[in-house]
């Protein structure tokens, strides 16, 4: 029996769905699964019971929330796909600010009939069974997740950082060599350290490591020793890590003595 899957997008750049739609094995995916719902790709179907729902995007409007809850009610398993769904994404950076103020800054005194909010991860609203990280996720991982479900199992999530893939690939370390603010040490692996491989410091697009093992404090300390300012470190780490519990606190701790 083919598994029924649904693929959904809340507020995002649609990159995760696009990545799913552009996997090389797309036609095999269509063959091996019953795609019950995928608005970006198909005008057929509506939210109905599925074995597995994949959801990208952050909850950024009242409508998103409503839709997400409906998806959850209709899915046996829910997978949060991508940095927006897992940590709120780049728009999640505004976390902690007042929505009304930001709205005003952008829309002035105009009124819009939909209710917007600051982007938040799915787990704030519903139970998430698995995370498929990435911004966007890698083709290999998308296939791995789907395939493990297809054989009646489930994926093993990575809990080690980009650094280790960087080393497995033999790339020169940009943090040691060029003192560039690489976030590889606290970012969940899976991209085969793409950016360090291009001599670009990782900006942590896959999001911080799960299980409380993203050591923002240790890394901030090293950055500080390399002469970076607190504002700079914070600004960089928050791009994908703002909604990681204790990120702010961990960075503050490193700069405590100074303030």
């Amino acid at each position, binding site marked *: 029996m083919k598994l029924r899957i649904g693929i959904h*997008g*809340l*507020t*995002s*750049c*649609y*990159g995760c769905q*696009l*990545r799913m*739609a*552009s996997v*090389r094995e*797309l*036609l095999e995916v*269509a063959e091996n699964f019953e*795609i019950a719902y*995928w*608005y*970006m*790709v*198909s*005008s*057929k179907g509506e939210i109905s019971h599925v074995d597995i729902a994949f959801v990208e995007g952050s*909850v*950024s*409007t009242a*409508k*998103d929330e409503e839709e997400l809850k409906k998806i959850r009610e209709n899915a046996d398993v829910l997978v949060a796909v991508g940095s927006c769904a897992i940590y709120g*994404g*780049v*728009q999640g*950076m*505004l976390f902690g600010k007042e929505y009304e103020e*930001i*709205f005003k*800054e*952008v*829309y002035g005194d*105009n*009124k*819009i*009939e*939909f209710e*917007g*909010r600051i*982007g938040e991860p799915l787990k704030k609203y519903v139970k998430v069974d698995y995370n498929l990280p990435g*911004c*966007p996720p890698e083709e290999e991982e998308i296939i791995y997740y789907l395939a493990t479900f297809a054989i009646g199992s489930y994926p093993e999530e990575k809990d080690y950082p980009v650094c280790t893939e960087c080393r497995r690939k033999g790339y020169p370390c940009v943090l040691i060599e060029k003192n560039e603010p690489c976030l590889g040490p606290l970012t969940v692996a899976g991209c085969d350290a*793409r*950016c360090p*491989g*291009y001599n*670009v410091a990782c*900006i942590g*697009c896959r999001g911080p490591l799960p299980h409380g093992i993203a050591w923002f404090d240790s890394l901030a300390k090293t950055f500080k020793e390399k002469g970076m300012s607190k*504002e*700079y470190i914070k*600004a*960089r780490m928050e*791009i994908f890590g703002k909604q990681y519990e204790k990120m702010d606190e961990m960075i503050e701790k490193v700069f405590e003595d100074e303030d």
Partner: protein
Amino acid sequence: MKIEREIKNDHLARIEGKAGVVVEIGDEIRARINVTEGPRFFEILTKEKNYEEAAAICPRICSFCSIPHKLTPLEAIENALDVEVTEQTKLLRQMLYFGNMVESHALHLYLFAIPDYLGYHDALSMAKEYPDLMKNGMDLKNFGAMVQNIIGSREIHPENAVVGGFGKLPEQHEIEKIKKMAYNVIDAAVATVEFFLDYEYPSYVNLERNHLAIKPHNGYGVYGDEIVASDGFYFSVDKYKEYIEEDIAPYSFAKRGKYKGEPFMVGALSRIVNNHNLLEGKAKELLNSHSEFVKAENSFSNNFCQALEIVYFIEKIAEMAENIKIRKEERVKPDKKDGKGYAVTEAPRGLLIYEVEIENDIIKYMNVITPTAMFLPMMEIDARNMAEGMWKNGYKDIDLIGKKVEMVIRAYDPCISCSVHVIRL
């Protein structure tokens, strides 16, 4: 107004992002496009960030055009900081950009638009009966993706393009690979153009309109400093606020562009209308023999023009790959720390404008105007005209009208995520 019938679709399928459409039929006919995608406030996200980080955030505005949303802010930043990148960087960036054009157009045509033409819900079911057609689409998409993977590090959110150049230059053998593949897929591109020759455009959406496109630096390119309108007027990008204004509608998180107070169009059709004489090679031949398919007043021609562009850009990539000899060079580091800069490029869906102000390496102000925000009002008019035309000509099947209205919208290839990145003027 008493509403007799209403077409309402909360969530349009097969477009990028989340929007709905409402058509009300009564004494008069009204249409509006509800952009329900949540706001993401990119101007605020990038504020107070180092420019390098800002340039990494911008692509996240939209995955379909993440390359334009990387390369355009880079150019604006470089303009602000007086960075003059090398010729090689310019060439590679152009190639990267063209790769994105091919992929984006291929995805849009094959995944979103063509199923409409053939009467399918989606490309996946279409693929069963039209496997060869679908293979063309996948080949084109894969080719575009390959170019972006090689030069940009990946096809979505390319991190290799950085201020002053590239983190790592592609290897010569990778360029060779691009060249080889380009020649392999050109037939698929031509077949795409030919696909559209079997279809006529609905005349209901015929309407005189202004087309805005870039005045390219060289050839039928994507980089330039000036914007030309089909009314003959042109202006340089730093004056954009004088001619392009935006307003807000209560049913949309996206702002809506006007040129001299009027709705206008941007995108593949606008580029061909304004710059067709710059086309070369096979694309030019195809255009010459099928010029009746380019109708400035009909937005359906946009799909045909996208297909033409695929041919053009693949040939161009092949030509560039033929000539380029990768030289080792370092990225150019800016001497300045402050400045104000503008950039405009032609994203797959049309003009994309970035404005930045930098103080001590930190972004103090950033403004982005995306193509979808520009053409939204025009798209709404076309959607309305489609519904009205059909209704007045005796079509009473609301579902059918709804489908056709969706087709109009899809012809534009709107990018809703882009449109709600949210702009501040």
